[in-house]
């Protein structure tokens, strides 16, 4: 026991205190973030209250990179609602709009068909093999609001040269075009990286 006390005495106590303080404050930050996240999950009733749109199937309403807020309660699903659902066998949930509802007497169980706003066909091709309808337990939440367009695409940021009525600049500026192309490549790469990192984490997914 004596040599332990000697070892402890040789290390300056302020250094230990500093390290411990840092560890504890890091733990407090992580824990409070977890508490807030779980609290939001409890209040909204949905497993993932905030999601990022990854595909363009709901354009022009939801563009890639938009953030959606979800909520889930016991109200029956009705046509026109935008729902987030999981298909068996697919890891990434899908956000589309309900177009058809058939609700049973008594039990209240529903059969639902969905479709993305800018898709031509309904979502039967996306469901599992042999599955024609979605049911209540597939639905993770309803979209109730959206935040800003947070992960912009090259079209939003880079102004293209051009005159009304023409598709390309009349006097080609070689350096200008090359610079724009580089910006676009960088922006696309950064944006894909961001969206890919959302996709592979379990916190944000769509």
């Amino acid at each position: 026991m004596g040599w332990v006390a000697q070892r402890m005495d040789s290390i300056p106590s302020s250094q230990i205190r500093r390290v411990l303080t840092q560890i504890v404050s890091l733990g407090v930050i992580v824990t409070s973030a977890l508490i807030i996240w779980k609290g939001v999950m409890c209040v909204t009733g949905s497993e993932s209250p905030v999601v990022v749109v990854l595909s363009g199937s709901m354009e022009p309403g939801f563009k890639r990179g938009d953030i959606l807020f979800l909520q889930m309660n016991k109200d029956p699903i009705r046509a026109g609602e935008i729902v987030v659902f999981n298909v068996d066998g697919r890891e990434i949930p899908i956000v589309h709009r309900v177009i058809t509802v058939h609700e049973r007497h008594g039990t209240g169980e529903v059969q639902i068909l969905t479709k993305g706003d800018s898709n031509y066909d309904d979502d039967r091709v996306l469901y599992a093999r042999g599955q024609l309808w979605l049911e209540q337990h597939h639905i993770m939440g309803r979209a109730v609001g959206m935040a800003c367009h947070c992960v912009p695409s090259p079209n939003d940021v880079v102004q293209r040269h051009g005159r009304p009525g023409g598709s390309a600049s009349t006097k080609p500026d070689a350096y200008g075009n090359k610079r724009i192309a580089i910006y676009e490549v960088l922006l696309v790469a950064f944006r894909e990286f961001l969206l890919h990192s959302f996709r592979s984490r379990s916190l944000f997914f769509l």
Partner: protein
Amino acid sequence: MHSFSYRANAVVTFAVTILAVMCGMASLSDNFNSPSPTADVKVLNINWFQKQPNGNDEVSLTLNISADLSSLFTWNTKQVFVFVAAEYGTPQNALNQVSLWDGIIQSKEHAKFWIHTTNKYRFTDQARCSMPLFASGNNLRGKDFNLTLHWHIMPKTGKMFADKIVMTGYSLPEEYR
């Protein structure tokens, strides 16, 4: 305390907070808008009404949809998604809603519209595989149904609103044609 990373952290945090507050206020401003939309849907013709091989009844209609939704648009509106759905009840199902047509209105100028169209999506009842064949799917003959015009306001930022106008008094013919 005065390092670059500390200052950058403070600036970014403040900017994100201000952005969130502005988005919240923009969304709140939508509550002050009291919309007064009007709509009318006429069924001009029943094109055909058949029983499909899988047992379901299916009908094709020609509709005339006219609506004025310009009072729904505020400065915070990105688009209004409008769709017409047929609602009816059957012995098995308390409520069926089948979407017949939908459209996207992106600006106030296009919000007053008149369109003459056949149904974009199939108006068909649903047969349940677990029920005996003779009891399912023949449910649309002579059926009375409501046509509802739903709209879904999608804002640039904030809460989405949805509402509808119900129009009653439509019915399908008794016999196939």
